[in-house]
């Protein structure tokens, strides 16, 4: 044990999903000495959309055009929802700052400040979201204007059918047209993967070939929709070059996860945070955590998939942002749901029979989604009496109880706003 190195930090963020990444962004902005740890970021499953608040109440499936009004109503109806721990201007600031970080990280977002935007999904449904990657914005405009539009897919790219998207949207958008093409740069396998296609389009010659293949089919199309494969590192350059070649607005439609926009987002955030001095321990996990007599936490860190400690971290505070079951922030056993690291109390239904509805798509969602950590106004996990368990342990993101981000369409907003709240509470604690 003696040769294991101990690192020190003011703040350690556990989790590299949206909440963890957002927390790290806010921490760097506040010049907090930060370590971030996580395995397999959930961001690669992201569509790239930033949802803020779309549906409330979920059982009546009421859809809101103005996310801020939706949040007002939500807070009035559900005072335990994590959004209710923040004032609305704080949520606005959090969103604005995160979108500014993304701008600085060269992954710009587009949005209407007080309005949700409709976007196209790979199954041809239309979804409400708040902010949209720049590469997808022309699609939201096309969908709204319903102008003549060509959607292209490629032989070998599975689960992305232009015909399906056009068929699904045709009733509201008669001028949408599908086209299937052979991708100009295919490898030996018939299977095409979005990441491989995106890399191929970083090469200018491939873009010219693609444009040549599409051009004869444009006819009167004002815009062109493609699967999200327009470049891995330089999406702006790839898209604008194709726009120049074809003379129409071009937009991406996300593919099913893990998608290129998700990977772009993850890589951009990692680069941005590393450049800002956050010590990122990727593919590492916390094996155990313990509070010392001085109040600081000691964390032992190991490789993903190993139980052997490689280093220790002594940290003033921790933000727990490990997500739910996929993120391993929570663990569901046959008898109950646990928080595995600090063994924090988990709000949950009385028994497993109540976890899931008989209908997977039941409008009111599954009760297990409401399970998680209960917190005080300083984002600290609390006990049954509502008292914080540790004064310097905070939690953010989907690990929090009393929300259903999947049904409420508030995933990114919840992650970003609660991360902002947790960092702010940490700052307040250190200032006192």
């Amino acid at each position, binding site marked *: 044990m003696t040769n294991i190195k101990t690192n020190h930090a003011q703040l350690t963020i556990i989790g590299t999903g949206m909440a963890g990444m957002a927390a790290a962004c806010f921490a760097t902005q506040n010049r907090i000495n930060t370590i971030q740890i996580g395995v397999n970021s959930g961001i690669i499953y992201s569509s790239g959309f930033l949802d803020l608040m779309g549906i409330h109440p979920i059982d009546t499936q009421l859809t809101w055009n103005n996310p801020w009004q939706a949040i007002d109503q939500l807070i009035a109806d559900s005072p335990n929802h994590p959004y209710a721990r923040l004032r609305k201007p704080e949520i606005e600031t959090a969103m604005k700052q995160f979108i500014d970080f993304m701008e600085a990280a060269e992954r710009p977002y587009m949005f209407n400040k007080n309005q949700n935007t409709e976007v196209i999904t790979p*199954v041809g*449904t239309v979804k409400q979201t708040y902010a949209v990657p720049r590469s997808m914005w022309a699609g939201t405009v096309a969908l709204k204007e319903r102008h003549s539009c060509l959607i292209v897919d490629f032989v070998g790219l*599975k689960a992305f059918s232009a015909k399906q998207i056009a068929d699904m949207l045709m009733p509201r958008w008669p001028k949408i047209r599908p086209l299937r093409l052979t991708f100009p740069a295919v490898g030996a396998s018939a299977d095409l993967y979005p990441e491989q296609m995106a890399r191929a389009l970083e090469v200018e010659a491939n873009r010219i070939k693609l444009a040549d293949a599409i051009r004869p089919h444009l006819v009167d199309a004002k815009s062109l929709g493609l699967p999200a494969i327009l470049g891995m590192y330089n999406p702006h350059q790839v898209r604008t070059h194709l726009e120049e070649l074809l003379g129409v607005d071009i937009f991406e439609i996300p593919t099913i996860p893990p998608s290129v926009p998700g990977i772009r987002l993850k890589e951009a955030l990692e680069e941005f945070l590393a450049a800002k001095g956050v010590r990122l321990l990727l593919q590492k996990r916390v094996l155990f955590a313990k509070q010392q007599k001085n109040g600081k936490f000691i964390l032992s860190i190991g490789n993903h998939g190993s139980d052997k400690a490689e280093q220790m971290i002594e940290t003033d505070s921790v933000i727990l942002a490990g997500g739910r079951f996929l993120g391993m922030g929570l663990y569901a056993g*046959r008898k109950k749901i646990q928080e595995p690291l600090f063994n924090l109390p988990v709000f949950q239904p009385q028994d497993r029979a109540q976890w899931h509805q008989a209908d997977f798509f039941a409008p009111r969602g599954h009760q297990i989604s409401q399970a998680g950590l209960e917190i005080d106004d300083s984002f600290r996990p609390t006990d049954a009496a509502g008292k914080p368990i540790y004064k310097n342990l905070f939690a953010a993101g989907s690990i929090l109880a009393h929300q259903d981000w*999947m049904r409420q369409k508030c*995933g990114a907003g919840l992650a970003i706003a609660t991360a902002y709240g947790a960092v702010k509470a940490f700052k307040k604690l250190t200032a006192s």
Partner: protein
Amino acid sequence: MKNNLKTQVLIIGGGATGTGIARDLTLRGVKCILVEKKDINAGASGANHGLLHSGARYVSNDPESAKECRDENRLLKQLAPDCIEETGGLFVAVEGDDEKFVADFQSYCDKADLPCCPMDIAEAKEAEPALSDKTIAAFAVEDASVDPFKLVLENITDAQKLGCKFLRHSKVVKFNKTGNTIESVDLLNKTTGKELSIEADIVVNATGAWAGQVAALAGADIDLIYSKGTLLITHSRVSQRVINRLRPPGDADILVPGGTVSILGTTSLRMDSLNKIRPTVAEVDRIVDEGATMMPGLESTRYIRAYSGVRPLLGGGGKGDDRSVTRGFDLVDHAKDNIENFITITGGKLTTYRLMAEKTADLVCNRIGVSAPCQTRNIPLISAHETRWAVPGFSPKNWFKSHDKNDLLLCECEMVPQSAIEEIVDYFDIFDQQVDLKGIGKRSRIGKGSCQGNFCSLRITSFLYDRVLLSANQGASEIHSFINERWKGQRCLLWGAPVVQAELQEAMHCGFFGLELQPNSSTSS
């Protein structure tokens, strides 16, 4: 416009019995149409252990059934070897089990003339290491496992090749009678909404647990008890042999291996209605806890699916455990109810499906003046080319051996390629032009891997649009109903790794695609 068809025999019900009758009759040269309100094996034929009984399970309480099982077991091993795995079986008792029952078991078997061979405990433990250390007795019997999906697919495929017409999603809504004779039967296609009328010389009701409802529609009476049984599929195979608990039939007392998995069950719960036949968390927990006393590893193993079926048991209003009700079958000539051309066959069990079909076909032939004898005792059930995608393990083997370089894997868990989907869709009876993911699922391994349909439903839906087999917003309802069908089997087993998978599925299908907000036009449940 209403379609009309004409046939000699109309068979209602696409389970083992109905498809068995279809094959038996077509082999005798009789013209048949088989109609099914959902798809093959929608009832108990698709929700059982897949156990080819030696008969030993029934020696103590139903010796007649035991003998029927013994004979059919031997016959099917000869006739349908591709559907059967000759695993052998064990009856084992653990500490605390009724020792008198253990002591009497051999003599029960002898009385029924069933081979039963006592085994040394150490020997049994060596053969089946998963057995509990508390095992106190073991007997070897001639149990085997049978793949009910392959069996039924082979029967119906063979019958179709011989000219039988098979209509899926076609629900009987009305019997049109003149005097004491059924002239025609009206059907409604539940997915397309189309109506159809079939004229037949004779109508056979082979609808299992639904036999009472269908008979009532014709104005006849069948008295059935509904006994719900729940079963669990393990992620990997637990034993080589069928393992039976050596005690009077009870909960979770049989573990049947099949290919790479094992099936554990069952419970017995009296039901008043056939609605909402789904497993519950309480049943699952009970099965796991009970099963673990026989094989302790069943406590911690990963389960991939739970499902429930309804045993149609004969005789009304019995007292006590439904397992004591006879497992024999009942062939009813409704001439007794003043309907001249209507027959019901129900009760029984998978092991005796062929015998039930033979007896039914004999009666049908007798009534319509056909003298051709039964052939299913002699003509083997050969694996048809068309059914191969349903066989576990076929897809990956086939893929690795050779595949067209332009073929794509649409189900990556079970390695089902685009070409397989294309082929399966071609076999569907194109009468109603209806292509459905659940139907493809019955004829292949899609949705049965670790993603439980999360990804393959999306890939196959896109493919079906590209082939113009789906259009407009049908895709959304297809994904919806396929995911919900898989969900039925997952919901009670969501702890550990499967709960992670379920979360990803909800994040994608609801969080991202918003499919919960789509109007669901699918009417099939």
